């Protein structure tokens, strides 16, 4: 019909990155204890291999991967296992191991492995961009010809990927060369957002020398979403239910690449990560290196506490992050930041009627008509919602953000999606 070209919409939003962009990542004080969940990845929970009372070092294996899609979990501090418990992370209940810090800072290195995949698997590396897919599985027998490194951190407030580029470019390039040698990638592309270009000018030459393409994408949100990146880099689209591998593309986040460096060249398992602590309610904004399992509360303390009454403390960025019910939750492998917002910054006015301004339609990065799906859902017409492509929604929240009538479109679509999926399940049976 009249719809040949997909316009990769996306929206403009306040990025709020200026303040942490230039902040070198620093280490905070060691927490007195850490609480390490046994599932910080997609797939099966890891099987604990320690028991209460055991002495562990930083890097000691706490739980072993269970099956193919799973990941090892290591202790992030040295100390004593004091508790095997269960905690809630979002809607999920997961096992967790509590370790009391003995402040001896003992370290246990990874054993030597024969293949790169085995090293990555042993180190418990998962996609640090947020999905948490075990990285070795992604590379396993990889026959893709393109490797895309995602450094287009499009979520507002978060700047950790950018810090990796600034602080560890050499290390990143070393890993990329290693990956190229191992998996025979024809193209390696590093993707950054346009607004970073000026301050990252120094990366051009080293990348060129290493034969890595630099791809610059627009400042629109959500440029860092997998599907959008693929479209931007390769002009190809992922049809529903297919994965990048089907297009001969392998996609990884830049922080993951750095974790691989640590494992391969330093024999360090994934036990710590850099997070951006930001938002207008935090006293001192920081890019902080923290042991995985550190509580959010401790981290906030490391940043001088709150400067304003916090209305929302979010695990991740404000667009796709998860609102924390309490500050006792631990940092996961996939946590990119903690965003603390005051009510001024995060107030959501009451919903008014849709004025059909089409902003949500123009902004949807995957070409949906969000308001129509929301309407169909509210009218109880699931079939229509499905027909309108509800299942293609990538949950980016651009529509809800941009809507002048403050309609929570994404929440409608999410509910529609889950009901559609349930219906499909039922029909299968």
């Amino acid at each position: 019909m009249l719809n040949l070209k997909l316009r990769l919409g996306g929206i403009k939003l306040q990025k709020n990155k200026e303040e942490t962009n230039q902040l070198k990542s620093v280490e905070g004080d060691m927490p007195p204890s850490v609480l390490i969940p046994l599932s910080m990845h997609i797939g099966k929970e890891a099987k604990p291999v320690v028991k209460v009372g055991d002495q562990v070092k930083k890097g000691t294996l706490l739980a072993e991967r269970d099956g193919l899609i799973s990941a090892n979990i290591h202790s992030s501090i040295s100390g004593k296992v004091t508790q095997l418990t269960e905690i809630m992370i979002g809607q999920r209940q997961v096992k967790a191991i509590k370790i009391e810090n003995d402040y001896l800072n003992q370290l246990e290195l990874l054993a030597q492995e024969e293949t790169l995949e085995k090293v990555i698997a042993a180190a418990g590396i998962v996609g640090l961009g947020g999905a948490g897919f075990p990285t070795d599985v992604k590379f396993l027998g990889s026959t893709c010809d393109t490797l895309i490194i995602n450094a287009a951190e499009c979520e507002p407030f978060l700047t950790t990927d950018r810090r990796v580029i600034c602080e560890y470019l050499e290390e990143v390039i070393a890993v990329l060369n290693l990956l190229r040698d191992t998996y025979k990638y024809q193209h390696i592309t590093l993707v950054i957002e346009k607004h970073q270009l000026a301050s990252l000018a120094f990366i051009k030459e080293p990348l060129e020398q290493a034969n890595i393409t630099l791809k610059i994408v627009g400042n629109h949100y959500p440029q860092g979403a997998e599907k959008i990146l693929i479209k931007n880099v390769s002009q190809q689209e992922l049809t529903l239910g297919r994965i990048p591998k089907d297009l001969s593309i392998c996609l990884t986040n830049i922080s993951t690449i750095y974790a691989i460096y640590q494992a391969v060249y330093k024999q360090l398992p994934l036990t710590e990560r850099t997070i951006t602590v930001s938002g207008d309610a935090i006293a001192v904004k920081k890019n902080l290196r923290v042991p995985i399992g550190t509580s959010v509360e401790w981290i906030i303390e490391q940043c001088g506490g709150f400067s304003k009454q916090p209305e929302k403390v979010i695990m991740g960025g404000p667009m796709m992050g998860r609102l924390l019910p309490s500050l006792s939750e631990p940092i996961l492998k996939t946590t990119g930041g903690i965003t603390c917002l005051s009510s001024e910054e995060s107030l959501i006015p009451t919903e008014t009627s849709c004025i059909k301004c089409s902003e949500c339609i123009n902004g949807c990065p995957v070409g949906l008509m969000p308001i129509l799906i929301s309407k169909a859902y509210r009218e109880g017409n699931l079939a229509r919602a499905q027909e309108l492509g509800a299942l293609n929604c990538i949950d980016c929240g651009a529509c809800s953000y941009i809507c002048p009538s403050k309609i929570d479109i994404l929440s409608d679509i999410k509910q529609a999606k889950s009901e559609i999926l349930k219906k499909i399940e039922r029909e299968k049976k």
Partner: protein
Amino acid sequence: MSEFSYVLRDKVMSGPHIRSSVTSLAIMKQVMIALLFPTVAAVYFFGFKVLILIVISILIANLLEMSWHYFRKKSDQSNDLTATITGWLLALTLPVTVPVWILIVGNFLAILFIKELSGGIGYNLFNPAVYARVLLKLFFSDWITNWVSPGTDVVTTATPLETIGYFRTTLPLDFYSWTDLFFGFNLGGPVGETSKAALILAFLYLVFKKIINPWVPLLVIFSCFGTMFLYSGDFRFASAHVLSGALVFAAIFMVTDYTTTPYTDRGKYLFAIGCGVLTAILRIIIDLPGGIGVAILLMNLLTPIINRYTMTRIYGS
């Protein structure tokens, strides 16, 4: 720890946790600011009475909407300014001699008949102001077509469009000067529509504030001009049509209406072209000005169909 403590107030809700600062109300306010341009021009050319008429029309529109909400027990609805805009627009499409009862009838048709009976804002098929204007024209022509020239003496006159007439391909010899047509000097007609200069300022304002897509009004005007040019082969004749009548006013304030036009940009462009071409055709074959109003209503009818054929393409499909 600091003196502030974190308490999660609402139930845990999904993202995004922030929203853009633009609200629907703010958009309506921008439209009202844009309406000031033709309003100031109207007061300049037709006197203070225009202002009184606009205020009365806005009051009536709001009164009608509020009583409807009260009557339907929707009294919790806060004012979204859309009734104000409708009343204002309607007043700008009428002559300075319009009797107040016409304003009442017009707003009644616009607010109650079209907007509220369809379910309120966002649900109406027809543009309320246009609909009311076209019906007024149809049934109360005598009271709303006594055009007067600007100035203190009330001299009844024809609008430029009436002097062109229908089924013509050339301009009459004594046709208005281009400056008069552009700025609105010595022109009779609906108070808000005579000064193209003021309308262009309003257009620029709305575009600058990102309230409307600039291509929509431009396409209305280009397609009307193009059709007239094809028909007459006369550049001046086609230009005169663009500068006469309600074309520019409607292209800026009515064809860009969110509710009654298609969702996607492609759809909006089709809608705009349809309006321009239909206006030209109606002006050629019918002995009445007001072609753009009828054209918009006809295109409003087509909006659902245009929507169906201009769906966005879904990623990966």
